[in-house]
């Protein structure tokens, strides 16, 4: 099931890239890191825009690069779609001609229907006759995404597509990306340095630093890795994939199911069965040794401590797992909910998760509390979740 294998080594003197990744063939894989971490270089190597002297790249069983056999497929022969940080539309062509530029050059024409769908999805149908200079930044980027998708690529590569846009434009495009996410069957590699985009879009997360992959795996597992700086961050959070199972109109609440049970959330305007991404900040999670009987907190779940680490200042970071509850499996989007590829994702970097399929969670508590409760790895505890936020 693993369909992307990417191994690259290059050395520019002041910058070295050295990664060996196995990534899933569906969903959005976010390459996350600060500037200079090598995330864009990695993406460009995958696209063939840059050539790593040492490298092997296999997509869907096809070899795109193998330095040992001196094989390197030039970019224009790779069946990919690429979205640049600046939309990079051809300034001498109308939106329509930009969209058709690639279409004219592929052998199998996917037909007008798919392009129509893409245009509708991205909301750019009315811009067809405009020149790129007469588009807003957000519109330009949407056209660029449509232009890449029009090719019906086997993989979509996106290099910080939102980074050059202001906050408002970002909010304008993110919903489109979420919708794309639900409708695309192809893998997407998405480069960003924004935690917000990670939370909203990622299924799989690769954390890059100094040209190396620190961690790689399903989103909430990678987010909750204690050996990665992300877990200590003030904004540390885990994102769960959940599905709406019922609305409690009387209380203005919505119940959602996830692999480890169910949660009550403030009412969400979504039909039963709708997939949701629920973000839980580590600072909103507290721990109790026994099931609290009298508490105002609705979301109390059994969990097991799987890791403890020092956090910032007075804090301790606790990594927990909520066991999979088969009975709670709710109807809805199986692709989203069950992570069909999750158990296949191998972690080539760092420690491997033992309880694959369980839901990971992070809690930031005070060191004093951790000591008083005598928290230890392996302990069965209860987590109380004070707040959640819905990401889509």
């Amino acid at each position, binding site marked *: 099931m693993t369909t992307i294998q990417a191994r690259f080594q290059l050395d520019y003197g002041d910058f070295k890239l050295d990664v060996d990744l196995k990534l899933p063939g569906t969903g959005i894989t976010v390459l996350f890191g600060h500037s200079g971490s090598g995330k864009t270089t990695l993406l460009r190597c995958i*696209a*063939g*825009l840059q050539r790593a002297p040492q490298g092997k790249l296999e997509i869907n069983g096809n070899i795109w690069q193998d330095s040992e056999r001196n094989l390197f497929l*030039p*970019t*224009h*022969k790779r069946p*990919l*779609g*690429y979205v*640049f940080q*600046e939309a*990079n*539309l*051809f*300034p*001498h062509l109308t939106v329509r001609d930009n969209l058709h*530029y*690639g279409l004219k*050059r*592929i052998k199998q024409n996917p037909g007008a229907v798919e392009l129509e769908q893409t245009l509708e999805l991205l909301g750019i149908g009315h811009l067809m006759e405009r*020149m*790129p*200079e007469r588009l807003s930044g957000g519109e*330009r980027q949407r056209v660029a995404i449509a*232009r*890449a998708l029009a*090719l019906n690529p086997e993989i979509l590569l996106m290099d910080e597509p939102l980074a050059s846009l202001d906050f408002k434009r970002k909010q304008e495009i993110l919903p489109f990306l979420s919708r794309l996410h639900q409708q695309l069957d192809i893998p997407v590699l998405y480069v960003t340095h924004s935690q917000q985009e990670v939370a909203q879009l990622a299924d799989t997360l690769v954390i890059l630093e100094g040209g190396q992959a620190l961690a790689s795996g399903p989103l909430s597992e990678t987010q909750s890795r204690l050996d990665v700086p992300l877990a200590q961050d003030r904004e540390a959070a885990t994102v769960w994939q959940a599905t709406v199972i019922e609305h409690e109109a009387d209380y203005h609440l919505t119940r959602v199911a996830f692999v480890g049970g169910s949660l009550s959330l403030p009412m969400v305007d979504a039909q039963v069965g709708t997939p949701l991404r629920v973000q839980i900040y580590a600072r909103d999670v507290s721990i109790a040794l026994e099931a609290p009987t009298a508490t105002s907190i609705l979301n109390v779940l059994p969990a097991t401590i799987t890791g403890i680490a020092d956090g910032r200042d007075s804090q301790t970071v606790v990594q927990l797992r909520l066991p999979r509850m088969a009975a709670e499996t709710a109807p809805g989007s199986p692709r989203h909910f069950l992570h069909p590829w999750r158990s296949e994702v191998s972690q080539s970097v760092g420690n491997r998760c033992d309880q694959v399929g369980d839901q990971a969670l992070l809690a930031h508590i005070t060191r004093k509390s951790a000591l008083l409760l005598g928290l230890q790895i392996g302990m069965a505890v209860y987590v109380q979740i004070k707040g959640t936020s819905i990401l889509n």
Partner: protein
Amino acid sequence: MLSPADLDTLLLTFKVASIATLLMLVLGTPLAWWLTRTHSAWKGIINAVVALPLVLPPTVLGFYLLVLMGPAGAIGKFTTWLGVGTLPFTFPGLVIASVLYSLPFVVQPLQASFSAIGEQPLEAAATLRASPLDTFFSVVVPLAKPGFLTASILGFAHTVGEFGVVLMVGGNIPDKTRVVSVQIYNHVEALEYNEAHWLAGVLLLFSFSVLLVLYTALKSHPVAHPLK
């Protein structure tokens, strides 16, 4: 008024300039593209050679061409071996000399507009399945339109105005190598100031119109600025 002989020289001048410009575009485009893209050690040398006519007195260039194309020169021996005789004082010789003389006026604007395009549109085209050659014609050429316009007009106008090189390799043969600039010189030598005025006026008006058209066109060109 312009005499029939004057009109002939005008016609010949435009013929030389048109053919030379066409040749310069054909040769200069790949040369300029190569100079823009290459990291080769030869880049500096080739750049300098192409730019030489900008600083060299035309008579010096003409002198070397005369020697090289003459019966004892390398080019002359080659053309003799080909069976076409020697090139000095012929129309083809004049065209070749013009090409070498005006080439920097074609190559340099092209180079400037090629490098203004930058890497980005080329990469976008590659991700949209366009081969490098395809990219050149579908992206580079349209985006470099102002460069091609400037190159053609400057190359043409500069060839029309050449004098020293023509005198050295073309001489002053009516209907074969006698171009306008030489004809003006002939008129002045013969103290025919009236005739000289007419021809000079035509050239002045021509040059001014050409530059006016060029600057107007560049100003209103939609992609005068490279990428958005």
